């Protein structure tokens, strides 16, 4: 994958600091990769999954 590892590391770290689940980090990483691949995907579905895993 070509998303820089600094983005992934900081994403995971800052989500953790904000008491978010590791699953959320994985979903956001997957979204970054999908955006990078240029492929078509169901945007609403992935956003819904992300919000399901987001603690207020």
């Amino acid at each position, binding site marked *: *994958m*070509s*998303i*820089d590892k*600094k*983005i992934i590391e*900081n*994403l995971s770290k*800052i*989500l953790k600091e*904000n008491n*978010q689940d590791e699953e959320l980090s994985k979903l*956001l990483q997957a*979204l*970054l990769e999908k*955006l*990078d*691949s*240029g492929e078509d995907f169901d*945007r*609403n579905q992935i*956003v*819904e999954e*992300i*919000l399901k895993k*987001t603690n*207020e």
Partner: protein
Amino acid sequence: MSDTIVKILGWETKGLRIPDWKIDTIINDENIALILMPSGMGKTTTLTLLRYSFFDYSKIVTRSDIEVLQSKNKKIKEGEFNLKLKINNSKIRIQTIFNFENYTMSYKTTTQATEGTIPGLKLPSELNKYIDQEYIEKTFFNLELVEDLFKSSHAERSVRKLYKLDYLSDIKNLLFNYLKEQQSKSKAKVSNEKVNQLTLKISKIEKQIDLINQENNKNQLSYEKLLDEKRKLEKEQKAIGNKNIEIKNAIERATAKQAECETALSKNYEIFFNKIKNPMNLNPEFRNKLNNFVKNLARLKIPKSVGESFFDDLIREEECVCGNHMNEQMIKKILQNKESILSEETWLILSNIKTKITNNNNLDFQDISMSLDDISNAKRDLNISINKKDQIETSIDDTKYQEIRERLINIGIEVRELEIKFQEYNEKPDKYNDDVDAKSIRKLQSLLEDTRAEYASATDTQKKNNQVNLLKNILNEVEDKTLREIIDELVKKINLEIPRVMPYEKILVKDINKKIELEGQESASQGQLARIGYLFLITLLNRPNFNFPFVVDSPVTAMDDVSRKEIASTISDELKNQYIAFLLPTERDYFAEELQNKSKSKINFVTAFNTFEKDSDHLVDQAIKCNIPTTEFKNGVVGYGADFFYKFRGINNNE
């Protein structure tokens, strides 16, 4: 993970403005190709064609982009550029076809894998994930444009794009779009009219944010340009002034006097400010009140810890301290009044205030008015010095000097106007912040957040709104932190290299704050900028697991001999990728030889020129003398080998 190694093997051109020829960049496993071409013979065009071969520009290019590639022979209606590549062990051919009737471009790709030619630009997926327009524009670089990295936000934008930080903003947009969609579907808790009002307000704020961001970017560019112009004009103006020693001395004296007056004025402002920081100096009535307050404090000087035990002991005595017999009524009164004794903390605070008031009570009110007089005098002196300098400058009998002077005055006005706009753009929000046409980005962002919250409440979508806002803040933090880390690392790497590349200059990169900022001197020469820009690009484009060619037009333009040698040294030491440079004959000295001596890789020396120019016979003669075939291509010559490369002289013999 294995590396993806990309090598450019060469290209062929047909029916374009440049000759129909074939140039091989790798003949015998060379990692460096130096292509020598006289000025105006297609260096920049080839660089553009190489860019077009790696990224689908067919929907981006304009008619004029294609027109500049058209052959001078207007009967030719189609041209093509065929690029041969090697990606790991596979060979691939990319054909970029230009139609000069309707000014369009299209692609064909031939790969070993498909064993055939397919329409479109079909690069292997391992390349697609690294390559985007920004990457291509920086990898195929014209070093004459290096100054852009030191202006506006070019450098930071390249970092953002190449490290794909923009995807974080894309995610934020996805989240907000989803939220909007959900809110439009949900049942409103308020009237439809209210919901519509809020929707409209959000849309207006979003539009205004876009508008002022665009304006701000435009203003930033204008500001940079103006400052640049100012620096150049001041230099030019100084040079004209220096021609006459008397004028030069008079200007220097007047400039020194003006600087002295400016310092005096700012010192007087500082003194005055320190005086008015003390509120007792502002108003006699206020001072009296504070003094009375201190007097009254003296009456309440018993702190609680001492006071309580004292009065508890006293009521047990038969006689009071005043000598009277302690009766029931007196005991009751003492118990009542002891409640008003100050607590320990209050006493400490009041004690501090008391000390401050006593210590600050020593200034004469006349001091303030004297300070104001001093400011007024310093201002007058400054005006006199400015007028005097102005008189000297006006008296200089040189039209160019006067033109510059006038322009500098106008630049000063324009710069101040832009600075006011920047202040307005960054203004903080206040509690009355409800202007959808505000010019401050901070005010608008705060208003947008509040309005979105109101809208969420009206549509009963607070939970989703809070989640989206939380994610937005997290993604912003990730973006800021990552950008900072990348920039710090880049700056560190570049600064490690600078002392070697520029051993005689005390210059370092301070930061990349939108643009590359230098430390050690106010401005740098074009040669210095080029070398730092080079280091920036090499460091920036260096990717783990991805080895892509670095192609540069005019690699050592505007550089002295030392800089050329050092750049050659940087390339041979630092660049592991294939390196292709389009050189002018004037750039060859000190660069090519040094690269040849230092590089561990073999170098492919290529010399190419067209034969449709009037004076190309002289070039053909040189080729014949070096045993270079001159009839292989109908309107150009391509020669290989160091001998012809070093012996070749351009159109002008001094090239």
